């Protein structure tokens, strides 16, 4: 594997996803419906990224008590909902995950 080509190519294709849209959209007047849609981008993308990691274990959707990803995720959701504190959620959620895994496996 030619690492120079690999990393140069990965830089180029990743930059293509990051720069052109910012350049183009910043130069047009964005319709109100589109900015309305933009408001939901963080919620929708974050949910879509984490759902399969939480629910899919060994290739199957698992909503059982031994799915420690799901349990720790539920605990994290509860902590975030009650405290709105990101750092606390991350630290306690990680702790919950490590403890649950030690207990369940």
């Amino acid at each position, binding site marked *: 594997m030619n690492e120079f080509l690999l990393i140069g190519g990965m830089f180029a294709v990743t930059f293509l*996803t990051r720069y052109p849209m910012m350049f183009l959209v910043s130069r047009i007047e964005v319709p109100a419906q589109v900015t309305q849609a933009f408001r*939901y981008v963080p919620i929708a993308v974050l949910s879509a990224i984490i759902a399969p990691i939480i629910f899919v274990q060994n290739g199957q959707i698992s909503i059982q008590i031994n799915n420690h990803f799901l349990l720790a995720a539920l605990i994290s959701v509860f902590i975030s909902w009650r405290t709105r504190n990101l750092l606390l959620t991350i630290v306690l959620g990680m702790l919950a995950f490590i403890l649950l895994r030690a207990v369940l496996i």
Partner: protein
Amino acid sequence: MNEPTGRSAFWAGARATIPLVVGASPFGLIFGALAVSEGLSPNGTLAMSTFVFAGSAQFISVSLISAGANIAVILGTTFVVNLRHMLYSATLAPHFKNLPQRWMLPLSFWLTDESFVASVKYFDSQEDQDHKKYFLLGSELFMYLNWLWVTWLGVKLGQSIPDPGKWGLDFAMVVTFIGMLIPEIKDRPSMAAAIVAAGAALLGRHIPNQLGLLIAAFLGILVAILLENRAAKGQQL
């Protein structure tokens, strides 16, 4: 004189990113260790974090290298996995009208999930453009420097991290995203966006290269807007 306000926005951006750096560090550590054990050179591993700076794409490229994929497949996959950045940069763009290229080029290069979410949250409460670019820059630089540092650490520690998958570090990204997501769910449309996007991502999980993720996100946004418009109509009647 906008320098003092720019400086305070820069540090506000860095401060808002502290928890996100905590969540991202385990990922960079594992990446550094894994990349070297899968056959990337130590310098190549550091170069990838320096020039690509996209965690999930970097992970997938390393697993493709160890699976013997050719370079075209790796680049195609990297592009598709990173397509969500187009949504991010389009969402940020209305905040950066008339921004000079010397700002737009680096700000877009350093764009990540974390800095994007932290910034749109801040931008919704700000009007002055100068504040916005400094905030994003502060967040991005902190994420970037930390990513380089933890990648380097992962490369150095390498084999002395026994079975990194066993440490629960893989949950770090999930809990970070949960902590960013939950405070954003404020009403029925935003709740619907989360549930529909999550459900659709589960149903579409077999669609290759995380393309299901993008389709799911679009569906979540669509349902949220339909609900919002219906609620607005209901109020008029």
